[in-house]
């Protein structure tokens, strides 16, 4: 009688119910783990994206501000700005080319980011771009298109900020 009782208890512990419940618990734990992993990764991405957008806006702003000094040159520029009287100053655009991309990146504190500028007329014709180099293997590209005035015409300034792949 005693033997029979012992056997009965063991058999109940290892029932199918037990296995199914354990499997479901494991499944739940695994799903929760992956979910949290995914969310954390997502948050990181958003944070990085947000940081890139801030860089993007800052980089695009140079077309809308005067910089410091107001009429700077390659030697005395402290803050870069390509505008005067709410219009793009073509002299400053030329000076930007003259100072080169590395100096521009330094003034913009781009860090690991890179920037490209494209200026289009309202009809979509490209009239200006800087710098001319562009890496094919780029990742995390963010784009901002803004509207301003170049030679008394409405133009769209497209700013790209990206990272090397």
């Amino acid at each position: 009688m005693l033997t029979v009782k012992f056997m009965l208890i063991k058999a109940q512990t290892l029932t199918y119910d037990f296995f199914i419940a354990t499997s479901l618990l494991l499944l739940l734990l695994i799903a929760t783990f992956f979910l949290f992993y995914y969310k954390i990764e997502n948050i990181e991405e958003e944070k990085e994206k947000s940081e890139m957008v801030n860089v993007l806006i800052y980089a695009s702003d140079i077309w809308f501000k005067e910089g410091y000094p107001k009429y700077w040159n390659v030697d005395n520029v402290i803050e870069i700005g390509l505008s005067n009287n709410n219009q793009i100053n073509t002299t400053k655009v030329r000076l930007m080319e003259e100072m080169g991309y590395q100096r521009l990146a330094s003034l913009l504190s781009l860090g690991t980011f890179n920037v490209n500028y494209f200026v289009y007329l309202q009809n979509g014709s490209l009239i200006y771009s800087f710098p001319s180099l562009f890496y094919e293997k780029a990742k995390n590209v963010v784009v901002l298109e803004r509207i301003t005035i170049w030679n008394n015409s409405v133009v769209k300034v497209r700013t790209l900020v990206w990272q090397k792949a």
Partner: protein
Amino acid sequence: MAKGIIFTTDILIGIGLLVVFILASFLSKPETSQEISFQTNSIEARDIINVLSTLKISSFSQTPTIKNLIENGTIKQEDLNKTILDLIGSFWYSGNKTIASNIAKEILENITKKCFSLQTENETIYSSCNFTSKTISVAYALASGYEIGKPVSGYVARAWLTKYRKNTTQIIPFYPEGSGWTGNPLEVTKSFSLPSNITIYNATLFVSVHFGTSKSQAEFQQLLVNGNQKKGNIVWLYLQEASGSYGEVTTAAYGYVDVTNDIQPGNNTIYLKIGTPNYHSHLHPGFRLIVVYSLTQEMQAGSQTFKKRYYFDNVNGNTGAWSMLSFYIPENAKNINAKLHLNLKKVEDSTFFGINTTDIKIYVNSKDPFYYDGVNKENDEYYCSRLRNYYCYRTLSSARDVILDFDITNKVVNGTNVISVYVNSYGDIHWGDKEAIIYSDSLNDPENSSYVEVSYEIDKPLFLYGEIDLTKEKMFGGEASNPKTFSFNISQSESKIIEAFVHIAQGFSNMINVSIQQPNSPKTTVFTSPSSRVVPENVFVYPRLIGSQNTIEIVDFQSYGGISPTNYILPWSSFEYTYLVKGIVGYGSVFNSSELAIQDAINRLIQQVGSEGIAAENIQTDTQSTQGIKWLWGPSLFKILIWDKV
């Protein structure tokens, strides 16, 4: 079996929660994306508004609408330097909304792939697509602008009259006064002065008398206007017979006579002589001379201190004389001073059984006498040895002249004042042997004439330099009735009223109440007779009581309160008002030369005063160079709304 059920329920709840949690996690969109979208839209909206505020019209001279406006001359060369927002605002706020929308469309379409809308004051000037998004970014710009086609720098000018010729109306009232008793005549002489430099266009004498016997006998004995006999020229408009206490028939008559060719600039005299066989003849309310003339004046500011003298008419009664003079004091007058000077001639001092009965009574805005010289202030009929046909038999001494001076300052009121003077008569009773005179000759003997002199101050002048006063009269019209109402409108150009009077024209009269009312406002009483037979020819109306729509009501009532059934108010009652017209125009449009600016100011001035019949005789101008005057529209808030296409 029971264990299995419990397990199944638990696991189902657990799985359900897990599924919901996983789905919620996957479906929840990170807020960062929305924030970035809103941020970039906001930047773009700001860019567009900056572009519109910066770009000049010249940059878009080839867009269809602007090109067309340039070609047809609406946009001039000097306008090309104005901004696009200025241009759009100018057309939008000048009512050319379609043009503004077209310009906005041609400039802004394809400017961005996103949806956007240009708005001002909650109206959409241009929208690239319908609102479909819950998240909209907005950028604002405040702008005001110049009128398209007008220079923004140049010369502005103003002009004002220093000398002008105006057409105006002057009303000279004859006071209710009498009397000629039982066949003896009443003689009234009105002396008055008109400005010497006028051209008289029309002069009409309205006569209102109680005289004669029946209607058929209603006529003047004399009506001399500056010596010209006019008694046969009167056109009688209204004749009303009445029977007196002794059965006698008399007539209240109202008529007019054209005296345009008889009245002259400067001094004038009107003399009338009327009588009645059985009663007493006297003048009724509504007797007045209306003169329309043009007058040349130098521009000047109104005064703040006033000293006016109101002369009595010279009244020669037989027997007994009386007169009721009316004058006004403005509502806001202060430091008021008033004195009464009477020169009464041939007053017969009467006694009754040795009692010194009253022969002179003076009433100032009251039913009680302000002054009486005998013992009885009233009840004259009790102090007669015999009363026959209104004649009171008393013992009379020889006639004497009486000069009386009174300070009546504390008796006068703001508004209409009435002073009644009775000599050897009161009401329907008279005594005395011969004539009694209330003496007045304001033209030749002003100091010895009978008058009321009023002085007062007001806080600010009635009119300022550059303002011209014009007087007009509106006749009531309609039918004779009691009560009588008169409704009239005051136009915007006449709305600055500084003085107004109601001239009451009546046949028989007793006591009156004059009130004025605007729609949906309570009635305001402007005058109530203090006692019987105190119906002034004119009643002053406070200008503040006059609105754009008005109704005047005149009611003749009995002392016991009922309406007098046959004391009609006649259609020739009138409303006289004096209003101000601006004889100055301010700086106007901007012109390229001072000559053009001055000519514009002169034209504007001539047009402004011309509409009121004022002709400029001398114009002073002032011109100034100016730059950058913002005008026509604004400041107005413009906004660009941007949202993502869905």
